[in-house]
């Protein structure tokens, strides 16, 4: 392990709280998103425990309604949206493109503080009356009728949105202006392409939710009437404004995870990603078409049939680039040299679960099916398959893959594989029964339900308990490994990205000498420095600073 690196370069709490080093900021984010993950997870446990019985005698109706609302708010705005971009993106993007830092390091730190302030407001809302409007804040329930702490929650989410905007802005500019010599656009790792596409969505979409929440907040506090029919307003206008961001938001959540998978599969199959250009283009296509489908959340609001037809059609279109990516990932495996390290297990898990989650989106986009399953557990199962089965798997896979780079130490491989397996089993047991529940007709956000739905609910809760263990394990062993794990070396896998050409952990300035790039991404055949056995080349092993 190198003597001086970014973790021990300077000491003291001020050197962390006032850092402008993107790697330290990534760790600040890691701490805060993990905190909110467990808050959201706590609410999830309460939901599943309560739903063990159809009469719901664990929690009162009002308390249950607060549980699912705050579960959604914490997980979406404070975990899923920031997680991969703010933790892995912040840490890796400068390293991957050969830069010393992001374009705007101080704005990066500012974005973390904004997140913390927004989180504080939302936590305040949670402890002073809670929030029971659903994370979707539909009016006039949220603006007129709810008796919960809507205003602080709306302010909290509003503020945190700017954290997202600044992160996206930073990434976009960085990728445009800070690439090392030779790092052309089509040599960029697909992780970077994925974050570029994500950043486009962040900067175009987030301001809209900001103004929407501002209007809803003012309506609640000052009694304005934009969304209140009693005053001439229109609750459907709120839905349009809300979903204009919140649909692209789901692409903010999944595109980075897809970017992680696009790194993991080539690395662990030791083969170029099949169809690099198509995968890069597909990321951009998802970002763009993702802005054109928001009304598929509103097929049954009584809107014009023509509008429903148009948005259903567009919804089917947005599925195609995701399908293309899935086929390309699978094709990469053929002819590869595949190992089953933990990150690759997460990649396989992602493939399977994202497949189900993505395909079930087709059911919902199909008008003749949505008229039955809209606002039922079918929808809940669909988005959890993508967000948990997809995005969280991608996040954990990425954390494991880059943990040696971030900490200089390796996690315990066999324990990690067991945890990955537990997660996969627990996840499916939790959420697959919910597809059935949805088609049978169990609506969402129900604190009591007809007794015929109990069997599937019990299955789901059993799965959730297993899932909880699956999440606790990495939390514990990754923390342990950061201090006591085996020293990993610069490039334990080995992988082809520029981030692996610096010591583990990297020095504060990332690269002592600015690298000059002459190779394609994932080009194992033209990287003699990796010391692998490439047919036609002799194995040249270069060691620098191992251990």
């Amino acid at each position, binding site marked *: 392990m190198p003597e001086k690196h970014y973790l021990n370069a300077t000491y003291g709490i001020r050197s962390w709280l006032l850092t*402008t*080093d993107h790697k330290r900021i990534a760790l600040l984010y890691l701490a805060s998103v993990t905190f909110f993950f467990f808050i959201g997870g706590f609410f999830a446990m309460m939901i599943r425990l309560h739903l063990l019985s159809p009469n719901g005698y664990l929690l009162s109706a009002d308390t249950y309604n607060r549980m699912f609302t705050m579960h959604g708010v914490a997980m979406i705005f404070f975990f899923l949206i920031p997680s991969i971009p703010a933790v892995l993106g912040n840490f890796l993007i*400068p390293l991957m493109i050969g*830069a*010393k*830092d*992001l*374009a*705007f*390091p101080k704005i990066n730190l500012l974005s973390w503080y904004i997140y913390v302030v927004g989180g504080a407001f939302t936590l305040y809302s949670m402890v002073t009356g809670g929030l029971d409007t659903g994370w979707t804040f539909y009016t006039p329930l949220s603006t007129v009728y709810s008796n919960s702490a809507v205003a602080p929650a709306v302010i909290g989410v509003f503020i945190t949105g700017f954290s997202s*905007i600044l992160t996206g*802005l*930073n990434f*976009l*500019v960085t990728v*445009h*202006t*800070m690439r090392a010599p030779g790092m052309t656009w089509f040599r960029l790792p697909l992780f970077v392409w994925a974050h570029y596409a994500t950043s486009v969505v962040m*900067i*175009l*979409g*987030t*301001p*809209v939710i*900001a*103004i*929407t929440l*501002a*209007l809803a907040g*003012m309506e609640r506090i*000052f*009694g*304005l*009437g*934009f969304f209140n029919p009693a*005053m*001439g*307003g*229109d609750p459907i*206008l709120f839905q349009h*404004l809300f979903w*204009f961001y919140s649909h692209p938001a789901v692409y903010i959540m999944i595109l980075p995870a897809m970017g992680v998978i696009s790194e993991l599969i080539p690395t662990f199959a030791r083969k170029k990603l099949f169809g690099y250009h198509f995968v890069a283009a597909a990321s951009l296509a998802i970002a763009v078409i993702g802005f054109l489908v928001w009304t598929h959340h509103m097929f049954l609001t009584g809107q014009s049939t023509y509008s429903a037809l148009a948005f259903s059609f567009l919804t089917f279109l947005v599925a195609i680039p995701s399908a293309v990516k899935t086929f390309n990932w699978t094709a990469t495996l053929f002819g590869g040299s595949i190992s089953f390290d933990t990150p690759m297990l997460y990649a396989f898990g992602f493939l399977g679960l994202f497949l189900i989650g993505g395909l079930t989106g087709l059911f919902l986009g199909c008008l003749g099916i949505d008229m039955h399953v809209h606002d039922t557990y079918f929808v809940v199962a669909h988005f959890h398959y993508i967000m948990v089965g997809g995005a969280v798997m991608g996040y954990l896979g990425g954390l494991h893959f880059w943990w040696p780079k971030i900490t200089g130490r390796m996690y315990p491989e066999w324990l990690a594989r067991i945890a990955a397996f537990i997660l996969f089993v627990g996840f499916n047991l939790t959420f697959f029964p919910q597809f059935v529940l949805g088609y049978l007709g169990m609506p969402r956000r129900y604190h009591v339900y007809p007794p015929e739905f109990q069997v599937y609910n019990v299955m789901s809760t059993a799965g959730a308990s297993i899932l909880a263990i699956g999440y606790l394990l990495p939390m514990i062993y990754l923390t342990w490994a950061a201090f006591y794990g085996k020293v990993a070396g610069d490039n334990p896998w080995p992988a082809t990205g520029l981030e692996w050409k610096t010591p583990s952990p990297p020095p504060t*300035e990332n690269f002592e000498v*600015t690298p000059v790039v002459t190779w394609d991404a994932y080009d194992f055949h033209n990287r003699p420095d990796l010391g692998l056995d490439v047919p036609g080349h002799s194995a040249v092993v270069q060691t620098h600073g191992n251990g």
Partner: protein
Amino acid sequence: MHRTGALYGQFKTLEQQKDTASLGMWIFLVTEVMFFGGIMLAYTVNRHTYFPAFAMGSNTLSIQLGGFNTVVLLASSFTMAMAVWSAQTGKKQLISIFLTLTILLGFVFFGVKYIEYSQKFHHHLVPGRNFDITFCVNNPDKCEDISAKEMDVEREEIAKALAADPNLNAHAQLYYSAYFGMTGLHALHMVIGAGLLMWLLRGSLAGRFTPEWNTPVDIVGLYWHFVDIVWIYLFPLLYLIDRYK
């Protein structure tokens, strides 16, 4: 990261740094377009649905004050552009002069806005606080700043508007929600802009801006022009709805 003269550590050349700052400000302005766009959409939808009420609301605004403010902001954009030009051509004293003029014009704008807002408060035209679009027409003695002739015109307009829309007050309140929302948001952006200008002024008085390095002047200029353009949209949308007669 420590500053090497004017070059920040993560950059290799001043040109790279300048391009980065510029691109950053342009992308930020795109996010501002989306931000204002949301409230403009809400305004547009409601104006289409409640045109008589929105026209009435617009008629209670002073086109003279609004027009004057428009000229003031356009002038301030000119002085801002001149400040940027001065920086680019190395005329250091002129930078400070033009920045000062821009700030002063900004304050004139605020002054007029203050007059307009306080008028609305007195005329019961603030949403949520006993909003009453007919207040002045029914209590001319309490609205002395409206001349007798203007009062007659307004009385006629109110009567027509009420006939077209019995719910005039509720819908006019929607108009005023949009009015305060949009102009308030705009004013907030101007306050931030004024703050940025004062920070620039400090720098220009210390002689920091040269033809080789004047990025802050450049990008604050971009921001200021954007804020001006937002007003160019707001003025016709809010003040000029029903004036073609």
